[in-house]
């Protein structure tokens, strides 16, 4: 069996890349990169105390916000 030179190069590159990817994956598992805490921290990153989970943003097509604002203005 004789493989073309190009095929041999491709196979070597694929093996090296695969080995690197596998070792990176093993590292990630060992250091608990996929733990639920890590994932939750990432997912909640876009929220903060001022715009917390549970408060929708950007409700433009509603009259409530306008009324709310006007009351705020009076209070201020």
């Amino acid at each position: 069996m004789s493989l073309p030179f190009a095929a041999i190069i491709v196979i070597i590159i694929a093996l090296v890349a695969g080995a690197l990817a596998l070792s990176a994956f093993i590292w990630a598992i060992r250091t608990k990169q996929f733990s639920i805490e890590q994932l939750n921290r990432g997912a909640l990153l876009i929220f903060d105390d001022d715009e917390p989970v549970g408060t929708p943003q950007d409700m433009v097509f509603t009259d409530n916000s306008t009324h709310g604002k006007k009351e705020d203005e009076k209070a201020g």
Partner: protein
Amino acid sequence: MAKKKTKKPADPHGEFRGQRTEADQERRIVIDDAARTPTVLYLGSGIFWLLVGSLFGIVASLKFNLPDWLGSSAALTFGRIRPAHLNTVMYGWASLAGAGMIVWLTARLCRIQLQLAWVHYLAVILWNLGVLAGTVAILAGYNQGMEWLEFPRFAGAMIAVGFLLFAASIIQTFRKRNVDHLYVSLWYILASMIWFPFLYVVANLGIYQGVIQAAMNWWYGHNALATWFTPIGLAGAYYFIPKVIGRPIYSYYLGLLGFWAFALFYNWNGIHHLVGGPLPTWLVTVSIVASVMMVVPVMAVAVNHHLTTVNHFRMLKFSPTLRFVVIGSMCYTAVSVQGSLESIRSFQEVAHFTHYTIGHAHLGVYAFLSMILFGAIYYIMPRLARWEWPYPGLIKAHFWMSTAGIGIYVIALTIGGWFQGVQLNDPAIPFMDVVEYTKIYLWARSIGGALMVVSHFIFAFQFVMIIKHAGPRRFAPALFRESAPMQREEREP
């Protein structure tokens, strides 16, 4: 504009909230302010190119219906205006508006003011000049001859330098970040900062010839989507859907899986544009396999986005951002599954070389990417301009016209293109009969296109109004927590 804005606004309602809340809000305002001028410049020039590009598009489409219309003008012939359309909407509209969204989003997600903000002024100028020079060159007849790479090399170089400057600022902002986690959107953004410059520079070197140049052409053509345009859209969808709804993304783990599957498979897809062509069969097969494997990242993203949205469809009624972004993410699923199917040989035998492909391309770039960009702009601008969108009615008009327009466009070309392909594969039907058959669908496409063009002008009008703080003053959600008296001091003439 930027200098004036850096002072922190006082919050008269602060006593009703905890210290922490006030700090969060102020920090967000400071970060948004620092990104304001670059973001508005990118978005504004993007919208300018959207208008130019969609006018090119409608003229090109009408030329199918009325081939002798403007027939004596060399610059406006179909073969020049079509590449002008593609390049202005891709490198002008989608790239520049996407860059604007990325600038704003990166600063927010890294929780730090935009770093090296000044390079963006240079980048915007270079990028716009590059697109302008390239477009003029195409219309004047200096076309490089390869789809997606029509711009002459000097125009390409200007865009490349502009992109590198832009990327430098994004990377620097990332390095100075105040967070120990990177949000999903940021993975896509940072990856594209590496991918796209490599791709664009290699493709523009012009070192290939013959069929390999064709392989390179479509490696580039498809990867421009894979490494730049799709990451823009996904970064936007991953941020705006959970943010507007106020619920975290359904599964962060799927987000991870989806990202790496996307990175692995997407940039092997390109050669499916050459199925049946004179290339080594294994090469085409590799691309088909990778295209079908795209189902994995697409489904991961689809599950994530749709299951985040599913119990909150009511909110689509209230939020323009959510409407556009959810439509966009639905179309991402649709266009990707369609793309995987389309790469398969038996499907390509019919659909390749027909208008079906054009419908597919617009489903991707318009119904997915542009919709998400529209949604992003509707969210970002009130927060940067400190002024609400003056005419919610016009937002609705924009939404319905562009949705109806792209709907008509895609459905017409999908049906017409498919049967065009079926007829082309029947040697008993003369070629001209096939052309005759497609004409009615090409008219439908012009109608859909016209609706989109009108909606873009409505959108651009409202964009100008919000920048000028013109139109009726509204107090809507973006400004809900801000102190109205302070705004009045600053803004009323």
